[in-house]
């Protein structure tokens, strides 16, 4: 025996100022909640998408990132001969790489940010086969030429196609732009690793990492076993995807904890607001409720009716919160990758899952804010309330 929902719609409309406040309270909370999570998601997605399942990254044993430790040319040769490595004809698809950071001014603030400069081998695009040159061309081995990620020209000053820049004591020309599908590589600058070594006066046969393209994702085990079993090798082998996922943990933990605290405290505020709104709704309508009870609507009907009303308010709030953060989707921002001290551009990612979580969060707040007033509404003595003014 339900009380008609139209009663709730009309009642919400009749008390709109109070309802709007509750709606905005919930909308604000849901908005902040989704925004923080989308930030964390975006950061994580950018790093995770940098890895592919059929690539293996080899770094010095115990190193936490490519930046630390070295891989020698001898070791690279062993990696090239390891089982499971894909080949282009007879050439093994392994890119030994050197990574440095170079300061370039951020367009947004004009202050320097550390851009990751990656010295790669000539077959880097075969090793990372998802990365495509979209403008210009790949660098010529042996020349001081740069190809830059898609985000680079927009994020930093001076790195447009055709520009010549100076860093590390060398003069470099930007000859191409590549698209790395929204991954961390999109914030990187690539050049020939041998040229980079020369310019930076690094020892010629020392690299910081080697990325091997495998014949299949399943080949990793075989590859890894062979390398770790080799007594000449002192390296860690990880699936590229796992390596990047691990790099994202510190930042995502930070954002998630901060966002979690902010959203949960806000949720308290919003629930208090919803409680107040619903309690005052119950108080203002005590005679109406008593009338319904006298007519013969049972206590459960009254509880359900008020819950519907609270859920209605919170659903609208949740929807509004979702709509408010939707424009954030795809918005690019920058942050530090703590593991490499380099600057990384990434986009907020407002996914359907996050939106659904936001709505559920809103409904949960509505439920918590609605149950006590609804129970109170149903438990008030009917005879007294009927005559209340």
């Amino acid at each position, binding site marked *: 025996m339900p009380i008609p929902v139209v009663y709730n719609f009309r009642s919400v409309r009749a008390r709109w100022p109070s309802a709007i406040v509750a709606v905005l309270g919930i909308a604000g909370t849901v908005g902040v909640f989704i925004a923080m999570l989308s930030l964390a998601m975006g950061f994580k997605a950018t790093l995770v998408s940098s890895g592919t399942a059929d690539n293996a990254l080899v770094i010095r044993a115990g190193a*936490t990132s490519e930046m630390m430790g070295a891989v020698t040319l001898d070791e690279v040769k062993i990696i090239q001969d390891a089982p499971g490595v894909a080949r282009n004809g007879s050439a093994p698809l392994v890119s030994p790489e050197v990574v*440095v950071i170079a300061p370039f001014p951020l367009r947004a603030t004009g*202050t320097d940010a550390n851009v990751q400069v990656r010295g790669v081998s000539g077959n880097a695009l075969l090793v990372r086969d998802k990365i495509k040159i979209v403008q210009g061309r790949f660098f010529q081995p042996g020349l001081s030429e740069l190809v830059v990620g898609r985000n680079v020209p927009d994020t930093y000053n001076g790195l447009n196609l055709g520009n010549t820049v100076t860093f590390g004591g060398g003069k470099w020309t930007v000859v191409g732009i590549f698209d790395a599908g929204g991954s961390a590589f999109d914030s990187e600058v690539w050049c020939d690793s041998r040229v980079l070594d020369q310019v930076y006066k690094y020892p010629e046969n020392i690299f910081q990492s080697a990325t091997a393209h495998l014949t299949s994702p399943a080949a990793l085990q075989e590859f890894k076993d062979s390398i770790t079993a080799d007594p000449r090798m002192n390296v860690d082998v990880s699936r590229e995807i796992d390596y990047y996922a691990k790099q994202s943990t510190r930042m995502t933990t930070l954002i998630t904890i901060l966002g979690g605290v902010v959203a949960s405290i*806000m949720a308290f*505020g919003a629930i*208090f*607001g919803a409680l*107040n709104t619903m309690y005052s709704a119950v108080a203002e309508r005590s005679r109406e409720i008593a009338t319904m009870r006298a007519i013969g609507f049972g206590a459960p009907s009254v509880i359900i009716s008020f819950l519907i009303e609270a859920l209605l308010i919170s659903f609208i709030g949740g929807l509004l919160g979702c709509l408010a953060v939707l424009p954030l989707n795809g918005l690019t921002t920058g942050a530090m990758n703590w593991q490499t001290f380099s600057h990384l551009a990434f986009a907020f990612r407002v996914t359907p899952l996050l939106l659904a979580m936001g709505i559920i969060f809103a409904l949960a707040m509505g439920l918590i804010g609605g149950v006590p007033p609804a129970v109170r509404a149903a438990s008030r003595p009917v005879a007294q309330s009927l005559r209340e003014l």
Partner: protein
Amino acid sequence: MKYSSLLFANLFRKKVRLMLTIGSFAAALFLFTFLAVVKSAFSRGVEVAGADRLVVINRTSIIQPLPIADRDKILTIPGIKAITHNNWFGGVYQDEKNFFPQFAIDIENQRMVFPEMVVPDDQWKTFLNDRQGAIAGARTAKRFGWKVGDRIPIKTTLFGGPGAWEFNLDGIYHNDRPGGDESQFWLQYKYFDESMPADQKGLIGWYVIRLDNPEDAARVAGAVDAVFANSTYETKTETESAFAASWVKQFGNIEFLILTIGSVVFFTLLLVTGNTMAIAVRERTAELAVLKAVGFSDRAVLFMVLGESILIAAIGGTLGLVFAAAAVPVLANALNGLLPVLVVSPVTLLTGVGFALAVGALSGLIPAFGAMRLRVVDALRRV
């Protein structure tokens, strides 16, 4: 306060609502404090940077080294009180998650450049004579439960291959400046350099200069960079605060993010509390009219309603601040060193109280004015 008994009687008329309103205020002020603390954690380095210090780094990037021989050339520039050099020692204590900065330092000069980082003299003396000695910041020592005399194993891959280095904790430094960094871990540069392969010996990470006079900063910085211009190791010299600020900027637009969230939070809670106040007054319209009918002035009614909302704001706000002050250390632990220092400063607390009172007054103002302007005749009939 002549009307205080009336005010309190009104306050406790609806206990549940009173609790909820106080709760919303507490939530708002908790968030305010929390966001302020996080924001200052990011900009802490800038705020506490010594005005009289310059940082000299390799122009190419912070991770490129500078030769130790440059020190003597820098010292020829007038206006320098002291100079020290540091190396980044990216080691791992037990687990990668236990991050804290470790520096190989110039033991002769570090204390002269960073006088605010205080080590007891006897501890410092032990450190000087202990090749494998180390000094840790009070916060880091507390975090891992270290005591002077402990042996600390640190793994590193950055220099000289993998392997655990062992250090004797000879002393603990405290930072004199409120909110100053107490997380660093210092080891002797000499010990560090001995372990370097031949081609990496004699290199340092960066220099820190302490000036005789802070006003000389621009001149000295220019002079340093001029000395090394067109050399193999060009330098970039900037004040410590500019150096710190450029790091903060790279974290992304933290300030903007926090300001945005903060205003959403505040706007939301202002609405919530304002609405509650309005409801409370609306429900009492008839009573307020009676008060006016028996001779209370408009202003008395205004102040009574306003006083009520400000009182609620003050109680709720204080509660929120107290909770925040208690919760911040817990959070700092949960973040496990991800953020430099989380401190609740008195300034934050005072600003918070001010904010709470302002919101209280603001949210009470509209209903209070409504109550003041109430026409007795209308109100008594409006049931």
